[in-house]
């Protein structure tokens, strides 16, 4: 087998969404080449950079077999915090650092409850989704953070430079996450815990610590995403990030990460973010009503899950419908 194919073989889980993404882009290229205009591409990149950061965290969480649906509410808290910090006169270079710490702290709460106490992550993070969101509503009384200092929007830089910086940060984090998952012992441990946490425990891996870690890191990434999103505007809404958890989970699952954990890559997540991020805009360019966008996204997620189940079945039984051999003893 040629080397290129060998390389592709290692990424077979990312192939279906990659093909789908190419198909969407090709269709748009034919039907509405103006989609590829500079300003549209820039908007797409800026809109999706924060989503990518959150989805990267979600990838880690799903790889260990957990889920975090509180990211949207964490995002809102972090956004408001960023605005308030800037308004309080904290130097703009310190704001991201403090907000990342805040995000990591909120993620740590999830991590403690799920990792150390062993509570189910779906329920813990559902509770946190409601708790953070309503605490914020109570704290801000729905008011936006306004009258921000000059240095807040675009970090006080020229918009073009700041936009490039935002996209660059997202790409750098993507590369670091990909490298770390593959090249660090911690990354390997994460896959082991996600595949079989009892086996990982027997190999001396502290799965509780791994679980705590992914939630904390995810919180930190949510904080970073919130800052990068907030600086695009001159006021911070108190209801940011509604539905962000769905976008992130969808991107991860569409990108070929197994919802049961243990398998997946950040490359897949990037493809997932791009696919789900472009398809909505692409549809309006092709002339389909935007009202269909959510429904189509839902269908894509469903298709990804079905494709995953079908592939797993084929791998195990060699056929879709025959029942597998009964395990001996």
């Amino acid at each position, binding site marked *: 087998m040629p080397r290129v194919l060998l390389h592709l073989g290692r990424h077979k889980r990312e192939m279906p969404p990659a093909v789908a993404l190419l198909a969407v882009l090709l269709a748009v290229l034919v039907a509405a080449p103006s989609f590829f205009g500079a300003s549209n591409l820039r908007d797409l990149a800026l809109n999706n950079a924060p989503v990518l950061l959150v989805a990267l965290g979600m990838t880690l969480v799903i790889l260990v077999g957990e889920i975090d649906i509180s990211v949207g509410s964490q995002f809102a808290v972090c956004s408001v915090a960023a605005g308030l910090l800037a308004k309080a006169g904290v130097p703009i270079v310190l704001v991201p650092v403090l907000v990342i710490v805040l995000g990591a702290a909120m993620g740590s709460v999830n991590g403690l409850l799920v990792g150390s106490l062993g509570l189910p992550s779906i329920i813990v993070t559902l509770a946190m989704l409601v708790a953070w969101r309503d605490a914020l509503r109570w704290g801000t009384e729905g008011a936006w953070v306004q009258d921000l200092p000059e240095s807040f929007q675009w970090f006080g830089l020229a918009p073009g430079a700041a936009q490039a910086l935002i996209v660059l940060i997202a790409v750098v984090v993507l590369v670091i996450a990909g490298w770390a998952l*593959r*090249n*660090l*012992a911690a990354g*390997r*441990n994460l*896959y*082991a815990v996600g*595949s*079989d946490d*009892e*086996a*990982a*425990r*027997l*190999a*001396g*891996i*502290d799965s509780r610590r791994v679980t705590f870690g992914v939630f904390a890191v995810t919180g930190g990434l949510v904080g970073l995403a919130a800052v990068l999103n907030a600086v695009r505007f001159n006021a911070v809404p108190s209801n940011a990030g509604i539905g962000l958890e769905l976008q992130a989970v969808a991107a991860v699952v569409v990108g070929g990460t197994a919802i049961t954990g*243990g*398998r997946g890559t950040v490359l897949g997540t990037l493809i997932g973010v791009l696919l789900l991020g472009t398809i909505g805009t692409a549809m309006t360019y092709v002339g389909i009503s935007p009202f269909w966008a959510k429904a189509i996204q839902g269908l894509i997620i469903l298709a990804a899950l079905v494709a995953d189940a079908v592939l797993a079945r084929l791998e195990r039984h060699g056929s879709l419908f025959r029942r597998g051999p009964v395990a*001996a*003893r």
Partner: protein
Amino acid sequence: MGEAPVLLRATNVTKAYAGVQALRSASLELRAGEVHALVGENGAGKSTLIKILTGAVLPDGGEISLDGAVLPQLSPAAAKALGIAAIYQQPALFPELTVAENIALGIEKTGRWGRVDWRERHRRAAALLARVGARIDPERDAGELSMPQQQLVEIARALGTGARVLILDEPTASLSKDDTDNLFRVVRELRAEGVGMIYISHRLEELPVIADRVTVLRDGTTIATREMADVNREQLIQMMVGRELSAVFPKRTVPLGDTVLELRGLGCTASGVSDISLSVRAGEIVGLSGLVGAGRSELARTIFGLTPSDRGEILVRGKQVRITCPADAIGHGIAYVPEDRRRHGVVLEMPVSENVTLAALGNLTRFGALDFRRERELAADYAQRLGVKTASIRSLVSTLSGGNQQKVALSRWLVTKPALLMLDEPTQGIDVGAKSEIHELMMELVGEGVAILMISSELPEILGMSDRVAVMHGGTIVSVLDRADATPERVLARALGEKTSEFRTLVAAGGGAA
């Protein structure tokens, strides 16, 4: 006795699981109104025979007949309809349902529209409970009942299905003396009603009290069926173990080094092991023998920090250490290859190479990052040394055979260069070739000065490979035998626990009553 008609007959039943012969030629004859004991070592094939009789497993060959009529293709439903029921050691009631509901399950025909006749349900449950002499309110939740009470409910349920053949699998294993007496009373009453009972127990001293005849199973073959009054405990043990050591073990004597592991009064309340004192020296293989449930794996898991000890001391090379998690144990050079590798000894969905290095990733980094070249070399090295048959070290472990998966599990721990290697059933369910390769590897390791603690349910393996044999019973080590003193009879007698004198008195009492 003896003139009653034959109720159930199994003739030359055979069964193999994935190449491992569980039953070679098992035969059993159960008469109406008889309590028929079935005894044998771990792995002799008792469970498999029971599964076949209850229709849970189809035999490869042989014949099962009920009332003289051959039963082809027995299924669980068919067995139940024919009146064959089994009661296991752990009651299998639904804890959230009431006793009456539990008894009704599977017995009751529903009325029109699936309507339940509650009064009838209650009445029948009360009647069945009365038949087994249990004073239990049918409306209580099953989960509130004690173990022995639940057992009686299960028997009542079995009788409710019209069971004529009752299989009791170690029913007294966790019963007190009084509860055992009560169970025996119920068994005798059912016997008087003509129910045939197959009675499995490791408590040989009970058998003369309750059983009429006994069948001994060994290596999947029926050795003999005797009148209970005609055999004593020694003869039974003799029949259970009486085989020549057919397998050849590559045992060589290795000069022993310093003590690597010493346990002093070690105990763990959560896992039920207590008062363990044992030492293992470099170059030594200590076999850990005992029946299922004696606490062997629990002891290994305690030493490895999976269920940390709460009493006693662990000394590694003479220094007292604290082990509260597996990472601690690994840090002290302790490795544990668990039982049931398909579930936890390896990560099935990871490649061979990543499985081999998983416990040693800390030593595999360069500037903090994993050194993939060294990982490949290491994995290839161990795969070759242990003869792992795999297409590539990048193949997923799930694609390998059982024996090869076990070698991968072993490799993982050899990479950590352990001082003490604990092997839990290292050759269970793998083929003969891989088995002797693993035995040979063990000899190589002790030759290099590794200390090995080997848990095995296979007596020949224990006797063939061990320098000393520690026998466990009831969560503690009851005896440590030197290789020269370790005969199959001695090991089994100690694993069975009770003292010989006690057995004699019971035989005398039982014999007198018969």
